[in-house]
């Protein structure tokens, strides 16, 4: 996408100069204890939490989402998939909120085909928090069928309210279980994920002066 990106190691303690942080997927620390539970205490996380606190854009994908939950940057927790198995397949999600820095290049209700690959993607939160997520349009993606119908059949893992991705109340932190980066190029036979990265770039461009240094 013509942008420069830098890898930040989990042992690093600074993310100086970054416009946005992406926590990728990938079974960090072997998923010991709970997914994301140990990773959440890696040295870099203090800087990530601080960056998010200053309004910096943070995107957590799959294990990255689980880490954001464990770190308390997003509400809720992940349970084992409803049918206990690891799921690796393309699914569909509906964009429930297209007015976020992560989805502004999507149409409201747009259906994206994205790959998932996880064993613990069964989102759970208490009823009070769920109501708040619904009331504040914090549910950004929900599992749906190809036509965009949110049904229990289209829910791959048993997630509460078909939740595939949520944002925080401030709107600058997003976590989702699907992998947009694994479906963002023609060579991968799926380009839907690119909408999310285009949205992030668009939001950064618009808010340049508000971004933390």
């Amino acid at each position: 996408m013509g942008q420069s990106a830098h890898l930040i190691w989990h042992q690093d303690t600074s993310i100086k100069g970054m416009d946005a942080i992406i926590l990728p997927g990938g079974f960090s620390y072997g998923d010991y204890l709970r997914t994301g539970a140990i990773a959440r205490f890696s040295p870099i996380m203090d800087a990530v939490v601080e960056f998010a606190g200053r309004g910096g854009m943070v995107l957590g994908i799959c294990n990255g989402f689980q880490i954001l939950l464990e770190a308390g940057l997003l509400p809720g927790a992940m349970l084992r998939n409803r049918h206990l198995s690891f799921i690796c397949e393309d699914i569909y999600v509906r964009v429930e909120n297209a007015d976020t820095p992560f989805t502004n290049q999507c149409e409201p209700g747009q259906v994206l085909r994205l790959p998932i690959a996880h064993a613990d993607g069964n989102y759970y939160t208490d009823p009070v928090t769920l109501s708040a997520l619904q009331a504040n349009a914090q549910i950004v993606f929900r599992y749906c069928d190809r036509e965009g119908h949110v049904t229990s059949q289209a829910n791959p893992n048993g997630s509460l309210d078909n939740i595939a991705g949520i944002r925080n109340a401030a709107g600058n932190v997003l976590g989702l279980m699907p992998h947009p980066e694994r479906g963002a190029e023609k060579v991968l036979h799926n380009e839907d994920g690119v909408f999310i990265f285009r949205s992030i770039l668009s939001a950064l461009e618009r808010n340049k002066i508000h971004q933390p240094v």
Partner: protein
Amino acid sequence: MKAKIFVTLKNGILDPQGRTIQQSLHTLGFSTVEEVRIGKFMELDLNETDITSAENTIKSMCEKLLANTVIEDYRFEILETY
């Protein structure tokens, strides 16, 4: 002293592992099993002599790391001699 820590899913949260094991037990003829809940058991050796201090330490460990209190409950036992 030694601490035994039990972490289990909160009541009301579906436990698919427990349900699968329950069905398996039924298949084996253990028809009296009404529910199975899967949890984690951790055993810690602590260099502590004061019970109250050990309790506080374990509670803090559970809240921060060993349990996720959004979905899990924890309880523990402390054994002074072993």
